[in-house]
């Protein structure tokens, strides 16, 4: 039973894939709306990307080239595990290069390199409901979405400003999709929110444990919630990557000793490696960027 040859292409049986594809079509037709689907038990735990895995399994074809990232990196343990799963069960080609991939499954990041038409970005989503921590009941939040009753969210953001002087949400920062649904962008840092707006690639979101799928078709308007006098602000780093020198990208803080020493490096490992392999003219040479 451990032999992948016993299982269907990409693990799921064709009936299940059809059911998921129907949910995906509905999700694409109503951008930002959470479509319930009959999520299956997968051979990895709920909360570890089962929603993303089911969506990926349903959209993969034999010619697809898959990239899997977690925290922006291709070599984090869970990304390795999921990539291996599809290598075994679908026998498809995989890559770490954003530009070469036709399907990218991600957890918590959007690649730094711009995505292009024809690519599919699959997000792993833990809690799909943006209103969940304001209202724990599904019956209530579904009603609020139906009536476009988003007062609760605006009050929450307003209270943040009243208390802290700014909106104190740094990831899973809520967005409004196509002027209609408020959507959870999955726990990506708000730094990545602007990349969702008018993205040429198809963006699919799968929440396995919560049994929901939602989607952003290519070139969909995605606006991070804010107020006129307190506009959305993207997280800024006052430095560049210490390995490749890139600026204006998302950085990981890596602790280097127990005396407060640390360094900042690209969260997107493919982006960083690409720059180090072929530094652009615009990029500062690596040596100068290092301390």
């Amino acid at each position: 039973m451990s032999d992948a040859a016993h299982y269907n292409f990409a693990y799921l049986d064709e009936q299940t894939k059809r059911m998921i594809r129907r949910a995906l079509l509905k999700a694409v037709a109503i951008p930002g709306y959470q479509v319930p689907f009959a999520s299956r038990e997968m051979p990895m735990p709920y909360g570890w990307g089962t929603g993303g895995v089911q969506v990926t399994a349903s959209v993969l074809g034999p010619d697809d080239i898959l990239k899997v990232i977690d925290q922006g990196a291709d070599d984090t343990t869970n990304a390795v595990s999921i990539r291996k799963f599809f290598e075994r069960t679908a026998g498809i080609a995989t890559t770490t290069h954003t530009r070469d991939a036709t399907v990218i499954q991600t957890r918590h990041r959007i690649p730094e390199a711009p995505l292009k038409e024809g690519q599919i970005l699959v997000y792993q989503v833990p809690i799909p409901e943006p209103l969940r921590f304001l209202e724990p009941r599904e019956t209530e939040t579904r009603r609020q979405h139906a009536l476009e009753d988003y007062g609760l969210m605006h009050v929450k953001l307003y209270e943040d400003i009243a208390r802290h002087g700014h909106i104190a949400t740094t990831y899973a920062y809520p967005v409004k999709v196509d002027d209609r649904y408020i959507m959870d962008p999955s726990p990506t840092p708000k730094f990545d929110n602007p990349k969702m707006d008018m993205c040429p690639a198809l963006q699919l979101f799968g929440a396995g444990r919560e049994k929901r799928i939602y989607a952003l078709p290519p070139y969909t308007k995605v606006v991070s919630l804010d107020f006129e006098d307190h506009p959305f602000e993207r997280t800024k780093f006052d430095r560049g990557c210490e390995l490749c020198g890139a600026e204006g990208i998302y950085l990981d803080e890596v602790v280097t000793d127990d005396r407060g020493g640390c360094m900042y490096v690209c969260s997107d490992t493919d982006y960083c490696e690409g720059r180090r392999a072929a530094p652009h003219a615009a990029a500062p040479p690596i040596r100068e960027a290092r301390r």
Partner: protein
Amino acid sequence: MYVAVKGGEAAIAAAHALLDKERRGEPAIPELTTDQIREQLALAVDRVMCEGSLYDRDLAALAIKQARGDLIEAIFLVRAYRSTLPRFGYATPIDTGSMTIRRRISATFKDLPGGQVLGPTFDYTHRLLDDRRHGAAPVVQPLRKAVEDDAAVPHVSDLLGEQGLIEPNPRAVNDEAVGDLTRDPLSFPADRDLRLQSLSRGDEGLLLALGYSTQRGYGRTHPFAGEIRMGPVEVHFVPEELGFEVSLGTILVTECEMVNQFKGSAESPPQFTRGYGLTFGHCERKAMSMALVDRALRARELGEEVVAPAQDEEFVLSHTDNVQATGFVEHLKLPHYVDFQAELQLVRQMRCEWEAANRKEAAE
């Protein structure tokens, strides 16, 4: 000097090799066989079958061995395998009334048709560790009592029902398919078929705690164990191409019917109400807990005020599944450093603002 961490793949392979070694334990000690688990840890096998929603003693025993005795992990293994199996149809409802009784007790009547049958139970054992169990203790042959083939063992609730003292079981509506939460996403409010399905595959520990909470006053239902019965029942299936019923074999089940508080209304005279529990295998604690929670969850239907967690179906049904629960709790082990970085920046910024505000206040 930091270099980007590499080698996740090698680390995973090494960790799994270590896991295999630990699973085997001391090599000088004979390896456990799945036959031994199936025969001698039968209640663990029952729990894995029940919460794994798959009746297969051999697979459950294999899962327990592979999971090193971690039953939730074993349940997870069985569930993941289960979702690859094609669904070729639905069996007809099992008839627990025609069960070959291995255990049958009622707490509501001293004696009753069919009698009280204790069966293989821990009840009334003194929980004293018995060091004879270290080795091969001789097994005393249990007594056998001849049973007449046609001995009727009616449900206690049917005895009460004949006098109208308990609410009738709801009749199945023929053209209404029974819900299946493994095939359709659960939505609320959920009907009793879906609630019972969810409870039957739900976590024993959670149901035990919730059932217990109703006994302690959080949604009290005044229960009596009307009947607990355990034994094999036949499973029948009607293949479309044959058009008549064929027997697929027998499964062992435990059924619990609670008899709960009565309340009358203008339309109906006072009568007892029901709570129902059914499990694969011999999972008596689970079946009883399930019956308590089932009754508590009927609060809305019976016009009772919903005040306690055990009565709140959205709360209960959203959290009964231990495969979901363990996955999400344990996913906190996965890296979260991208989001943590964002929070770190925010906390640092807020600390700066706080210090600046305090300095300003001190200066004024």
